[in-house]
């Protein structure tokens, strides 16, 4: 019984940094935010929770710990979540 509580304890209370760029920064109104989240949450769920009006559509990608990732895969122990709208560098 104590073991189950322990597991829940270490897997909750996670901090994650949200980064936004270009038009997603304008849409969300911030460029960086620290946030509590659960390892079982997906990027889509996290953004639905903090910005219900935001729709990434098909063009905005998400990067988890600086790697392009699946919107619907749990973030696990990630520490950074970045919105990557279509790029246009150079």
């Amino acid at each position, binding site marked *: 019984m104590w073991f189950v509580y322990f597991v829940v304890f270490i897997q909750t209370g996670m901090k994650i940094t949200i980064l936004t*760029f*270009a038009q997603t920064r304008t849409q969300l109104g911030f460029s960086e935010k620290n946030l509590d989240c659960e390892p079982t949450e997906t990027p889509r769920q996290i953004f639905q929770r903090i910005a219900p009006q935001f729709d990434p559509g098909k063009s905005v990608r998400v*990067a988890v710990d*600086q*790697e*392009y990732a699946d919107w619907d895969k749990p973030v696990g122990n990630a520490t950074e979540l*970045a919105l990557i709208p279509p790029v*246009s*560098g*150079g």
Partner: protein
Amino acid sequence: MKTQIEFTHTPIAVPPPQFVSKEIGAVVEFSGLVRELENGQKIPGLHYEAHEAMARKELEKIFHELAGQHPCEEIYFSHRLGFVPIGEVSLLIRIAARHRQAALTLMAELIDRPKADVPVWKSAAVK
């Protein structure tokens, strides 16, 4: 292969080449400049932003993938961030290779590739 990636908020200063090998036969340098007209509109300049840490990772991936096909000795990449006025360089890439064709082909592929995966954004700037 030696790679160097820089993001800078000040004008890009090209570092003098310091080649690792006496076998470098070709150096190709590309500079992308901000033009006065963007989609037919006169602009004072462009504004660039990047997810720097991620851009570095993505660039390194691309460099190593492309250099596998077109061997080269050195890639220097510098991208300016923030406001860049007309006529100034927003992107500079220098490739040093043993062979001319490898250097030129690698450059051509590099110029096309970063647009898709490297998180850098530009927008018409109001200074």
